[in-house]
């Protein structure tokens, strides 16, 4: 398909947005009673907060049970600057958002040391403390009696106040929704999903995990704050009773019920939530029951939420649209041209790797004992040895996942012993994992793109995405080339879960290659593969060496190791017991004894 044809194809996101915008512009003038406009306003700013939570929990996997606290920061920040300092409302709202972002950043940094359960607890406690502060710092917040007379968006025409607010909040929402969609489709979403999958894995592709985690926390808090700020100006009243844990739970319910990690999830979830709220307004007896039941039911029976249900409906009806991931790869006419393209990009100057005196103990057990290995550039170096010999530990120390107790690691002359995983990745170190780390939630192509270096600024990316419907064209091209090189090109828009095991391993290799490494660490690259697949991997590895890359691998399959490696290091009980070419190692009596026990003579 030519470029032109692709651009002419309708942008899948244009239609819903166009429809939405038309309804939005028209709505206040329809002959509905004013309450619907009020509800729509509430919908807009609540949705903004839910979008933030969706990015935080759905994409980066960080659980926050205290979003109400940031909502409150935004509300009070905005109300106080408008009321006491006389700032114009839009500026006040911006300040409220900023204040919430600040709070979120603080909590995010604080929370970097916690994850999962601890994070949930911490955010729960933070939300609780902020609620108490709002209640008791009466001088500032007015407590439960609150602040009245907060300026509203009237621009001098009080009768049209609600309409102005409607358009202002709605426009803000459209911008935020666009940003959210962009994040989902592009690099941001990919990186966040990688972090969610596993932080070590994300760091290994060069993502500065702490920055991203704190950053998305701050962003989600900012959106919650923006929601709160709009709330403050909707009716001109802010009281501390609005920011209890019930609000945090309501936002969570909206995010979960809508479908976490999806683009339309927040919208659907907020609609459902507000719908329920209005329906039970008159039945106070069963409110909590309904919330709890919906939460439990959705999580157990419909984990993908309303968005997931809609998705399966549209697929069943054959209405699903092709995602933008697949279409715009310019496919060269022959396989050879393809490989050449791929290879040109991947070729790199392999580095040397020097391990000196590495040791690591766990509770008294020495897993690695004074190991020193010299790995020459542009060679394939194998680490072998019986189970428990310490091979994986060494790989993890090279990668930066474990800190050695003693010893140094030098990469191409540079001492990297104190560098973090992500920094080592930036120096050209890529790795695969023994237990196969992939992002299950995104396509095969996206998994490879995770390794590709970012080529233009995010702003340029945004405009590409918005106006040209072609996001990260070059990165996508490069990834397709690598996939084709490995024979996976036809599976580019599948999910990793749909692939057989052998292809999943290839996919991980593709991602590592996409990082254009100077040194590649492969942890059991052919485990679980059959002889034919193993041969193909061997070919790939030899080809990579041809391109100049240094390769270090851990493997148990002797045939494979002997056929592929230039040099071998043999470990036993954490110690290096032999080192040499495959031929030398095969004859070495110490090695034979280690593998087979004493009493076996060659």
């Amino acid at each position, binding site marked *: 398909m030519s470029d032109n044809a692709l651009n002419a194809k309708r942008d899948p996101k244009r239609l819903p947005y166009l429809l939405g915008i038309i309804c939005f512009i028209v709505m206040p003038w329809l002959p509905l*009673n004013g309450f619907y406009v*009020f509800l729509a306003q509430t919908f807009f700013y609540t949705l903004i907060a839910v979008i933030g939570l969706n990015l935080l929990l759905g994409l980066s996997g960080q659980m926050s049970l205290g979003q109400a606290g940031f909502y409150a920061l935004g509300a009070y920040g905005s109300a106080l600057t408008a009321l006491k300092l006389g700032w114009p409302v839009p500026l006040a709202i911006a300040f409220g958002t900023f204040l919430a972002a600040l709070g979120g950043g603080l909590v995010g940094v604080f929370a970097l040391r916690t994850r999962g359960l601890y994070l949930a607890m911490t955010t729960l406690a933070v939300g609780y403390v902020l609620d108490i502060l709002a209640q008791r710092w009466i001088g500032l917040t007015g407590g*439960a*009696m609150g602040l009245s007379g907060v300026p509203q968006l009237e621009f001098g025409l009080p009768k049209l106040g609600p309409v102005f607010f409607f358009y202002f909040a709605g426009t803000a929402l459209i911008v935020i929704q666009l940003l959210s969609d962009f994040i989902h489709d592009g690099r941001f979403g990919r990186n966040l999903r990688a972090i969610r999958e596993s932080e070590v894995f994300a760091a290994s592709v060069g993502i500065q995990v702490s920055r991203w985690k704190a950053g998305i926390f701050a962003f989600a808090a900012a959106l919650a704050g923006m929601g709160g700020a709009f709330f403050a100006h*909707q009716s001109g009243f802010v*009281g*501390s*009773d609005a920011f209890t844990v019930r609000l945090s739970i309501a936002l969570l319910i909206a995010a979960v019920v809508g479908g976490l990690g999806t683009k339309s999830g927040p919208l659907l979830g907020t609609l459902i939530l507000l719908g329920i709220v209005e329906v039970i307004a*008159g039945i106070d007896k069963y409110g909590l029951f309904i919330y709890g039941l919906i939460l439990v039911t959705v999580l157990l029976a419909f984990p993908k939420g309303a968005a997931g249900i809609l998705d399966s409906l549209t697929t069943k009806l054959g209405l699903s649209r092709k995602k933008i991931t697949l279409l715009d790869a310019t496919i060269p006419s022959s396989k050879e041209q393809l490989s050449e393209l791929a290879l040109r990009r991947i070729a790199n100057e392999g580095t040397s790797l020097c391990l000196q005196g590495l040791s690591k103990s766990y509770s008294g057990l020495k897993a690695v004992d004074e190991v020193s290995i010299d790995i020459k550039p542009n060679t394939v170096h194998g680490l072998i040895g019986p189970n428990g010999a310490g091979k994986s530990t060494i790989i993890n120390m090279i990668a930066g996942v474990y800190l050695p107790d003693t010893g140094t690691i030098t990469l191409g002359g540079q001492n990297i012993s104190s560098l973090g995983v992500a920094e080592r990745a930036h120096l050209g170190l890529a790795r695969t994992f023994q237990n196969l780390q992939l992002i299950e939630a995104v396509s095969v192509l996206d998994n490879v793109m995770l390794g590709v270096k970012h080529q233009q600024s995010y702003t340029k990316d945004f405009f590409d995405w918005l106006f040209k419907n072609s996001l990260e064209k070059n990165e996508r091209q490069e990834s397709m080339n690598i996939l084709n090189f490995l024979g996976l090109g036809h599976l580019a828009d599948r999910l990793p879960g749909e692939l057989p095991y052998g292809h999943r391993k290839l996919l991980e290799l593709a991602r590592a290659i996409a990082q254009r490494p100077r040194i590649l660490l492969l942890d059991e690259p052919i485990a679980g593969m059959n002889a034919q697949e193993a041969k193909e991997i061997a070919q790939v590895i030899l080809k990579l060496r041809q391109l100049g890359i240094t390769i270090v691998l851990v493997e148990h399959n002797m045939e494979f190791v002997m056929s592929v490696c230039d040099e071998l290091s043999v470990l036993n009980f954490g110690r290096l017991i032999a080192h040499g070419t495959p031929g030398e190692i095969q004859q070495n009596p110490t090695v034979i004894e280690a593998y087979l026990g004493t009493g076996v003579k060659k």
Partner: protein
Amino acid sequence: MKKTYQQSMFKMAFTSALIACAFNVSAQVKVGVIEGLSGPPAIVDFGESYLQGIKLALKDYQAAGGKTKIELTVYDDEANPQRAVSLAQRLIQNDKASVIIGTVSSGNVLAIGPILQKAGIPLVAGPAIATNITTQFIEEKPSQIFRCSMVEKFQIDQMLDWGAKNFKRIGLIHSTTGYGNFAAKEIEAGLKARGVELVAMEAAAPNVTDLTPQMVKLRDAKAELVLNFHESFELPFRPLPRLNYKPVIAGNWGLSSEKVLEIVGKDAIEGTVMGQALDINTPRAQAFNEKMKKEYGKDYRWPVVAALGYDAGLIVFKAVDQVGKPDPAAIRNAIENIDGIQAVSATPAKPFSATDHECLDKEHVFLGVWKNGVVTRLN
């Protein structure tokens, strides 16, 4: 010829019937009620009790043959101002209520007040007690906000008058919410004006479960009278037995709830004083008490709040009946000028005027005391 005459007669009769029906249909008036019916127990006790009174008033109104058809729309604001505002908007714009009654949290009333004032819909506030609920809007003409409930300042004044006269060492325990802090300020100033100083002033969070540390300090300060302005009204009582300390406790009308009696026990609550507006010994109060017990059984637990809810209902329904159609402005005037109210509480027959939108003025609030498991008037 005959047929045409019959036809036109029939047509006229039919049309008149239609018109009569139309008038009857448009003679239905919607009364909105917003109350705190879920959330913290203190709020729920207030909200549920007030609503009980309103509902009984409606029943009595219908039984007495009220001509205007009244439809009650009840919403729960969950003690959340965001909900209260949304419900007010819903009642005004969607449900087309002509008058609204509610709610419990003073914050929520202050949130919806301006909206109703702007929209020209009258509000009879209750059981919220913040002093400025009506005064905030009384200057605006026409002022839409009325209140049928206790006014915090009046209770406090009465209590301070009595306390300063009868006790030398007075202590205070209050919650750290707006309500508690406001009461604390009023009390400090009020006692100073009466030439008395507090021997101890303790604060506590609204949802603490144990007030032992605070009561220990009050005991050590030898307070003979402890003023209790904490939302968990029963909490100051609970540590007393083990502290060997038995001061007189006085507080706002929260102490008159039968729930408090049930929780602390008849002996502990004997002699406790609080602000009151319902003299249980009047015949009307007795009759009301019986009717409520029959209607609600064990759920009826707070005579004075239910009584005020009943009186609010009485006023609103009578005013609506006088006007006869959904006309908020006319209903507001009717409420302001209403007379001949046979209230259960101490609300007078003509509660309001152009400058006074309180059911209970200073002279209608008195002090009650627990005697033998019943709240009676303190003499």
